[in-house]
């Protein structure tokens, strides 16, 4: 019901007020942005794998001839997206992040990326949001996988506002794009205005002692909260929202490295090959400084539990990030 109401709103679409009035999650604002794209341009198709009814989205009702459900068959879905793209369509692929990128990994690789298909993948349940569902439904490897495909753009919006603008930007960006999302309502980062340019990170807070580089739902907000905690202790942390993990904003990172001398990356993803890897690759070449990579260690979760408890356990909440920052700063000063 919230989604239908959000379609016919009197608030500024894509704003914090709009998100909060209707209680929208990132995947919901993303779907609403897809609807907007489809209204503007007949080339947009919505492709689903038995998750299209998720939340009662109106795409099927408004554009039945551009809505295709492939059932529980991701290779079929992604392959067909490649075929539609060969005919100049722009397929918007909606399914769980792990299914699109892992079950249909080779179709993403060959039928989309190798052919530079103008297709967009919107992966839900990225990270640990499916907390109680267990590791089969956690998705902690998607960024590493998506980043490996030549030509793939990889985006992790920070909140529901950012997800809206990221989806519109992706729709107008040629070539394959992967956007990682989640279904729960998450903390808001952006207000009325959300500058979103693919490949250009946003500086959310200035600071000179260290830089928190975060990407994705929840953790960007947690990084901002961590900066508040650190500020009370006299530590001045810069906070970057690196919403585009590939191509990474090397200039922004190099400047932060030179000006603050310490980078700490924060992501709801394995510490191997995700945001931390992308930042390490960039700063090691452009402006090497000490770097800490916060994320999920090299193991699958052993316990079920609520999302917030998982984040706390992995040190990805504000307290955990602040503690890691303190430790890294001390270690740096002691060198």
């Amino acid at each position, binding site marked *: 019901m919230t989604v239908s109401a959000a379609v016919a709103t009197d608030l500024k679409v894509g704003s914090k007020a709009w998100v909060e009035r209707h209680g929208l999650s990132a995947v919901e604002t993303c779907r609403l942005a897809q609807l907007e794209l489809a209204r503007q341009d007949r080339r947009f198709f919505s492709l689903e794998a038995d998750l299209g009814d998720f939340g009662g989205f109106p795409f099927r009702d408004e554009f039945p*001839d*551009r809505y*295709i459900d*492939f*059932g529980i*068959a991701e*290779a*079929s*879905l*992604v*392959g*067909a*997206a*490649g*075929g*539609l*793209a*060969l*005919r*100049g*369509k722009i*397929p918007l692929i909606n399914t769980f992040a792990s299914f699109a990128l892992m079950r249909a990994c*080779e*179709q993403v690789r*060959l*039928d989309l990326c*190798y*052919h530079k298909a103008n297709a967009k993948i919107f992966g839900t349940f990225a990270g640990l949001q499916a907390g109680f569902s267990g590791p089969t439904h956690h998705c902690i490897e998607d960024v590493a996988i998506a980043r490996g495909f030549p030509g793939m753009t990889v985006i992790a919006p920070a909140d529901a506002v950012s997800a809206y603008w990221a989806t519109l930007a992706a729709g107008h960006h040629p070539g394959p794009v992967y956007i990682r999302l989640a279904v729960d309502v998450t903390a808001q980062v952006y207000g009325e205005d959300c500058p979103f340019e693919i490949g250009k990170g946003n500086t959310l807070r200035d600071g000179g002692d260290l830089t928190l580089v975060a990407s994705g739902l929840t953790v960007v907000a947690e990084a901002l909260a961590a900066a508040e905690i650190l500020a009370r202790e006299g530590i001045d942390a810069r906070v970057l929202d690196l919403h585009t993990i590939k191509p990474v904003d090397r200039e922004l990172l190099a400047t932060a490295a030179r000006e603050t001398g310490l980078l700490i990356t924060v992501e709801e993803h394995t510490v191997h090959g995700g945001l931390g890897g992308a930042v390490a690759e960039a700063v090691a070449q452009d402006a090497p400084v000490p770097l800490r990579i916060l994320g999920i260690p090299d193991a699958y979760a052993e316990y079920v539990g609520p999302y917030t408890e998982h984040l706390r356990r992995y040190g990805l909440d504000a307290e955990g990030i602040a503690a890691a920052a303190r430790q890294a700063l001390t270690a740096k000063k002691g060198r």
Partner: protein
Amino acid sequence: MALTKVSEIPQADRWADLKDIAHTLRHHIVHMAADSPGAHVGGSMSVTEILTVLFFDGVLRVDPAQPKMDGRDYLIFSKGHASAALYAALAERGFFPVEELKTYKQMGSRLAGHSLKSIPGVELATGSLGHGLPVGNGVALAGKHDGSSYRTFVVMGDGECQEGSVWEAAMAAAHYKLDNLVGIVDRNGVQEDGPTEQIMALEPFADKWRSFGWEVREVDGHDVEDLSRALHAVPFVPGKPSLVLANTVKGKGVSFAEHAHSWHYGKLSGDQRDRALADLGPRRLREGRS
């Protein structure tokens, strides 16, 4: 190379022409397998008549002068390992010079072992099996949506049909009533490790396709008349995807390669090349053919 319209060729000459073209393609395949690091000989020799009828009997509505022509039919050659046969057909049909076949798998050539998308006439880079049919669905769905009359032909190997993605796509094609989609399976009965029925049985193969909602016709995949009748009759039934199950012989025409899984892939030595050419017999070029 200007081709005479199919309708203007007397029937007897038409079949003879097609057989001669297939024969020419086999000669090219032998040379490619001898002059390169190696080629998928077995599957190239088995698919030769299928490609001949598609390209030279007026089945595929394509124009070599305009490979990206609007409204063209799509050929998705899903058994991309049989690239030698595909390149031979594309070259003879005029998509690129026949002379270029000599560069097959040579340094700097675009004629890779598995077809690249940059080659004129190649719609989809293939080689990893099980990709063609899902992509073909997408092309066919776009055609249905746009009300376009082009058709999509997907050529698959039989061993390839052990991939689950083929059956996911087979289900979707029938579900969406894609009668603008034609699957052609080169049923040569042999895969890399041995006979399909020993490695991973496909039979009852035609029944599998039927049960997935396809209209099936079985043909002799080396009989150009049989193939032509089937491929000119698609869709076999309105509202259903069509499947041509072409029974073929792996390595057809080269005695030592026929039915031999060891010749799924290989390089022909000078001696083997000479024996293969002797098996085929001298090229029978008709007037006007290159």
